């Protein structure tokens, strides 16, 4: 039971979860921005934008994240030469953020789109009637109302994103799951303890997050 008293292991454990949180934070922001833009494209009057939005969603939603992250490393970095930092792990981190956010954006886009569907038709019609443009209708009238109904799905997406961050380990970032694998290899007699500590940490981070979003969704729900 000395796995987690060794300061070296404790450091690895902490840094593993710090990477997970950093990946989640940066990717959540990027995915939100890209996802909302994609949703706007999908409902826009310009056909090419609609096609682009739909293609993005279909490609990224149907590809395993492992492959998306792989292409970020081997496509963007190794082939196209996109280097984001001199530091090896910082570079991997940003490539991971790109992969996670392009992938998650597809899900954000679909959540926003079904959120738009919950806004009564009359709202948009009234906005058009007073002469608002498409962008104004979306920005001032529809999206603010849609926002309330997408909180619950956003909670689910955020939780999934945090768990998905472990997949960046496949391109060499030593995040929580890689640390767990290492520890399991070195401490074969404490397998159960190691798993419970790592899984428990994820549960302790994510279950409250889920309840928070549920509470928020209830509080801000539009009564119709």
């Amino acid at each position, binding site marked *: 039971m000395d796995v987690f008293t060794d300061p070296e292991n404790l450091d690895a454990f902490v840094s593993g979860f710090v990477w997970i949180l950093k990946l989640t934070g940066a990717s959540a922001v990027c995915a939100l921005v890209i996802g909302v833009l994609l949703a706007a494209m999908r*409902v*826009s*009057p*310009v056909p*090419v934008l609609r096609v682009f939005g739909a293609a993005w969603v*279909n490609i990224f*939603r*149907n*590809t*395993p*994240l*492992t*492959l998306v992250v*792989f292409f970020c490393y*081997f496509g963007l970095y190794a*082939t*196209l*030469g996109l280097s984001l930092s001199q530091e090896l792990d910082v570079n991997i981190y940003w490539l991971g953020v790109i992969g996670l956010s392009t992938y*998650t954006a597809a*899900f954000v886009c*679909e*959540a926003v*789109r079904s959120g*738009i*569907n*919950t*806004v*009564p*038709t009359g*709202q*948009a019609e009234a906005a*058009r009637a007073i002469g608002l443009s498409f962008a104004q*209708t*979306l920005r001032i009238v529809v999206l603010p109302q849609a926002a309330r109904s997408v*909180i*619950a799905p956003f909670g*689910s*997406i955020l939780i*999934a*994103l945090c768990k*998905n961050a*472990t*997949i960046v*380990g496949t391109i060499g970032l030593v995040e929580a*799951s890689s640390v*767990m*694998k290492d520890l399991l290899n070195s401490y074969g007699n404490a*397998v*159960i303890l190691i*798993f419970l500590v790592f*899984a428990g940490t*994820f549960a302790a*981070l*994510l*279950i409250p997050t*889920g309840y928070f*979003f*549920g509470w928020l*969704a209830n509080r801000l*729900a539009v009564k119709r």
Partner: protein
Amino acid sequence: MSTSNVLYDHPGPRAKVRNAVLSVVFGVALLGLLYWIYTRFDQANQWEPRLWEPFTRSATWTQFILPGLWATLKAAGVGMLLSLAFGIVFAFGRLSDRWWISVPAGMVVEFFRAVPLLLMIFFIFYGVPFLIKGPVTAFWAVVIGLTLYNGSVLAEAFRAGIRAVPGGQSEAAYAIGMRKNQVMRMILLPQAARAMLPIIVSQLVVLLKDTALGYIVAYPELLQRGVNDLAANYGNIIACAIVAAVIYIVINSLLTWFAGWLDRRTGVRAFRVPKQTAPAGADSTPEGGATVSEPQG
């Protein structure tokens, strides 16, 4: 609200011109980007015939890609069946009137939704043998991991669906003398299953993609066989990954298309599922056909 054209007026002459200009500008920029990517890949010799020639050999397909694909589908298929069963059982469990059933069921579902699948599979393969004093094959490690996670998500979806069935349905059922068990089984579940069909199927797409994580225990699925092992033979890992991605996209698109077809087939729903109120929300409202599942893996 249908998104077709409620958000903007029917385009007049000026709007048409503007849309056309935007289309062309964006289209050209996009094609330019794609062309740039193409040339950079070309400079890196990624289009060399040597790297792509293996895909014209039958052995590549019969020995690597198809067996890998089959292993992927097998794990996904068994995982889907078990997830549905798990989901139904635990949805009922959470809705039980007896706290000693509903509370543990809730804890199980919440826990497995919060643990990354990568950790689960790894633990089942390496940790569980210590507990059961016997081996766990890679296949079952993957399938059980998929079942626990996706089953938990489906349990939440079923629960939300069951709670959304109009109250009159169960009241009427109780009124004609049905027991709770019968009401659940014969009245609520069939209606909930139909209403939640889009979510269920999109979760199954997620499940299919998640089999890719089987590489962690060397389960010989599509990525392991079609990318890692194949590339060890020909040194063409990027080409292999592109082919694998296309296969995943085609299969998942078919599954999604099938879901849409099924949804239309089953006709007008008797009721609409309102916005989620469950903690951590079971994903989304199926209104308008748009669905959001948890984007794991």
